[in-house]
């Protein structure tokens, strides 16, 4: 049986780091005391609602706001003309730039043209919530409808509707990585090649709390305060100040309780910026809360690739090279991080866990008449892992090997780390066979293969889907981020502040939204300082309290933020050591530090606790000469490299031979995220990520019709997995510490999302291999399976 950690109370832990300490953030979330943005009210609060485009692509000919303006209780109605008159550009800033990337303006309110259904065209501010919605409905927009295109492949072909004059053929950027010649050479001498056309479908992130903003402006102090559902308050402050030409030091952005993000709350959106702009105009608090349908039509979608992929192999089953072209869907505009996902977020991870001679990938980033794509849990890595793991599945069949054996044969050997991949990334550490062995053991692989053969003889289709993955996360160092187009540094700040009482407040620039940072950071810092867990408080998500920060996304919080708070704790110990040595009248090197106590080597009775040192540091009556009073340390931790977690997931399914109905029999996940700070929280991250990965594999997918209407525009139409639709997850882990991270940690928040989709597709294709089914695009619904079975039966008569 795999391990399932049970929460323990902090005082039961011998050592906090590594223990499943119970989450301290839960009580307000359980009692209803939590404060999400829409829970916050103000005396003179106004509500904002948007008029959004019904069309995917149209010219805006006229906007009649008179009916809305005439409604009693409507305070203001805004269009792009009002924004222009205020003197701000209000354009969403793209912060990941590629060479020659086209970045046509992405305005807060549409100007002469709308380019996706749901784009904001006008806004209404009113005294009451329902009234604002009524007034937004009363605005009459005259459009000249234009042809739309929502497929990135179709968008760049001859004759497609053109979105932006700046981007001929809707190409935002052409980009490549790897070595074309070496790759072609490997293909030329390959014994086998396999190839695949696939779609990695658009997804709706669907954080349970829709995006929400409450903006206020105090004209006396000239300060703006913004409460919003954000993953990165400091970044949002920067983006909004840039968009609104507002001084950054006078805007405070606060993330109160945040009901999930999954990447959808790290980009700047036109509607959020406009809400702040309206509060600045009116000098009154203004709140906007997206409805679910509004969120689906305006919050960045994830994924969106149309891909052709090939793999070259030797007779023995050695992978020689891969060659990939992908059309990446940017949607109507370049979003904040939109250009990153299909390029640097994706292509360098295409080789996966495998040693190979060469790789080459070309990417066309295309504008389409759809919601701009943004990071979504995994952001590029799931798309890459999907490609390589589907190719490996096909390759095993092609060369006649068991798919587990083919993987094992091609894994980068554990003694070759750090390993520079053919895509140029330096994998820090890895031991890929261990999770494979463990996963195969947990799932009972050999027995399953035997049972599969027996069942096939009875006309039943059991399928075993294996997915090996390695991901890159904890992006940094900042210099490299700059070299690959990022207009930001990806360091993180941590502050450790002792109070005179010896209690500690930790500040971190990350911003948790369900990941349990309050608990995890307190574990790290309390252990390092040797103080009680309850003596450490953690503050995140407030630009006035946390000096600077980059936020939470890309599994960076513990790898970068955790390292930052650890570094600050270590600095605090070193300053405290100087004070302790001075007061004990010994040299600093003669002091030992353990469990919070500085003691003189060889004379353990002569000791002082760090919390008493803190008191002395603030009394400042007896400090070493030249040492500043106080005990507070700050660090900006810039990681040395990315971190590369890995693992193996296996899913077992059975497909009903008559109906195509698919049932999960078993799901096994063995992940290696290096050292774990809180194993129970790690397990929770793994569970949630698998659920989202299975959501993509099995249920979810954005559907646009030919006119660019969002067919999956509400939860009635978009299939977020439900409790009874998911299997029991059996999880386990191996531990291969990260060699360059001071905690030895790697990220874990996205792993399951990366691993699960191809596990499902591989399992279904494995089940249906007697019928010759090689590939089914996601989501692998029962209907999709049934259709694939029927197509296979029609083309080759079924059984081989």
């Amino acid at each position: 049986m795999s391990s399932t950690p049970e929460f323990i109370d902090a005082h039961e832990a011998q050592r906090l780091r590594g223990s499943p300490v119970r989450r301290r953030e839960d009580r307000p979330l359980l009692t209803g005391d939590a404060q999400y943005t829409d829970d916050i009210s103000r005396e003179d609060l106004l509500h904002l609602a948007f008029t959004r485009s019904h069309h995917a692509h149209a010219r805006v000919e006229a906007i009649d706001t008179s009916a809305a303006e005439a409604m009693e209780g409507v305070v203001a109605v805004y269009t792009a003309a009002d924004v222009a008159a205020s003197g701000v550009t209000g354009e969403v800033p793209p912060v990941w730039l590629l060479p020659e990337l086209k970045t046509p303006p992405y305005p807060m309110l549409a100007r002469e043209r709308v380019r996706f259904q749901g784009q904001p065209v006008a806004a209404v501010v009113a005294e009451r919530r329902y009234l604002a919605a009524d007034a937004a409905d009363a605005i009459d927009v005259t459009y000249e409808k234009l042809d739309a295109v929502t497929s990135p492949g179709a968008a760049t072909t001859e004759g497609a509707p053109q979105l932006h004059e700046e981007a001929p053929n809707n190409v935002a950027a052409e980009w490549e990585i790897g070595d074309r010649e070496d790759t072609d050479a490997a293909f030329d001498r390959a014994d086998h090649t396999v190839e695949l056309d696939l779609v990695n479908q658009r997804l709706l992130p669907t954080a349970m709390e829709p995006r929400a903003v409450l903006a206020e402006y105090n004209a006396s102090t000239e300060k703006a305060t913004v409460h919003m559902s954000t993953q990165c308050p400091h970044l949002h402050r920067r983006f909004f100040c840039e968009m609104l030409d507002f001084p950054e030091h006078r805007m405070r952005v606060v993330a109160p309780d945040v009901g999930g993000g999954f990447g959808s709350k790290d980009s700047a959106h036109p509607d959020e910026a406009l809400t702040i702009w309206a509060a600045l105009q009116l000098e009154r608090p203004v709140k906007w809360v997206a409805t679910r349908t509004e969120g689906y039509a305006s919050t960045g979608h994830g994924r969106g690739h149309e891909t052709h992929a090939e793999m070259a192999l030797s007779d023995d089953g050695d992978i020689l090279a891969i060659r990939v072209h992908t059309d990446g869907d940017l949607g109507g505009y370049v979003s904040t991080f939109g250009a990153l996902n299909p390029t640097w977020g994706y292509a360098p991870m295409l080789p996966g866990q495998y040693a190979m001679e060469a790789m080459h990938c070309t990417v066309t980033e295309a504008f389409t008449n759809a919601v701009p794509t943004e990071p979504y849990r995994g952001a590029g890595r799931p798309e890459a892992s999907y490609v390589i793991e589907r190719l490996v599945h096909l390759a095993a069949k092609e060369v006649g090997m068991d798919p587990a054996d083919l993987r094992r044969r091609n894994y980068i050997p554990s003694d070759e780390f750090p390993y520079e991949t053919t895509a140029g990334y330096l994998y820090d550490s890895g031991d890929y066979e261990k999770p494979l062995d463990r996963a195969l053991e947990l799932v009972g692989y050999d027995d399953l293969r035997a049972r599969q053969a027996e069942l096939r003889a009875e006309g039943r289709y059991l399928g075993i889907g294996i997915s090996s993955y390695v991901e890159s996360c904890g992006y940094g160092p900042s210099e490299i981020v700059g070299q690959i187009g990022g207009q930001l540094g990806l360091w993180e700040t941590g502050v450790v502040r002792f109070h005179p009482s010896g209690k500690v407040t930790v500040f971190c620039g990350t911003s948790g939204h369900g990941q349990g940072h309050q608990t995890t950071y307190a574990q790290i810092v309390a252990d390092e300082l040797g103080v009680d867990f309850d003596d450490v408080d953690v503050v995140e998500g407030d630009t006035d309290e946390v000096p600077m920060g980059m936020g939470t996304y890309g599994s960076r919080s513990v790898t970068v933020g955790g390292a930052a708070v650890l570094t600050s704790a270590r600095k605090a110990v070193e300053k405290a050591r100087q004070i302790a040595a001075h007061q004990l009248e010994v040299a600093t090197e003669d002091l030992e530090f353990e469990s919070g106590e500085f003691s003189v080597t060889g004379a353990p009775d002569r000791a002082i606790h760090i919390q008493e040192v803190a008191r002395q540091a603030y009394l400042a009556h007896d400090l070493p000469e030249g040492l500043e009073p106080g005990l507070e340390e700050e660090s900006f931790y810039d990681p040395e490299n990315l971190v590369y977690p890995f693992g193996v997931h296996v899913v077992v399914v059975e497909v009903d031979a008559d109906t195509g109905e698919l049932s999960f029999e078993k799901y096994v996940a063995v992940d290696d995220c290096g050292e774990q700070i809180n194993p129970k929280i790690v397990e929770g991250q793994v569970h949630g990520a698998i659920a989202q990965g299975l959501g993509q594999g099995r249920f979810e997918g954005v559907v646009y019709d030919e006119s660019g209407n969002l067919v999956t525009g509400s939860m009635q139409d978009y299939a977020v997995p439900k409790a009874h639709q998911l299997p029991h997850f059996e999880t386990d882990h191996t531990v291969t510490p990260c060699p360059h991270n001071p905690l030895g940690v790697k990220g874990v928040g996205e792993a399951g999302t990366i691993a699960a989709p191809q596990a499902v597709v591989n399992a279904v294709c494995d089940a249906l291999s007697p019928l010759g089914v090689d590939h089914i695009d996601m989501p692998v619904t029962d209907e999709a399976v049934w259709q694939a079975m029927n197509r296979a039966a029609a083309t080759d008569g079924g059984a081989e």
Partner: protein
Amino acid sequence: MTTHDITLTVNGTAHDLTVESRTLLVHALRDDLGHTGTNVGCETSMCGACTVLVDDEAVKSCTLLAAACDGSEVQTVESLVDGGELHPLQEAFAQEHGLQCGFCTPGMLMTSLDLLAHDPDPSREEIREALEGNLCRCTGYQNIVNAVERAAQTMRAATDGGDRGGD
């Protein structure tokens, strides 16, 4: 706009309020009465974040008109803590890591409360079926199922033993 004078008894306290015909129960609870524990996630009855008990039955307050609840007893998540002590369901959710961001949690708790009132010993499969109208995007549900199972045990032990039980 037609309005209605209604009475809602929320967590044992009666409130007289005037609502528009179209005012949803969830907005009456949140905006008029300040019970913000109940959340709005989808406005289509799909996600269940807004689930409350109306006359002891779990309902989705985002698609129920407040006027239709005139005279009803409404129970929200805020009612669960008793004398500062967490309800066994709340305790079990914390112990089993049955929540992450917490936004769906009030709805999960109220649906589970209704389930256990009608079936004190549900199977895991029955728990999953009972929660099908409550979406969670963080946990993958497994630990929520564990939590409901644990709470059921605790609550049965309390009933059998005549006290509030424990582990």
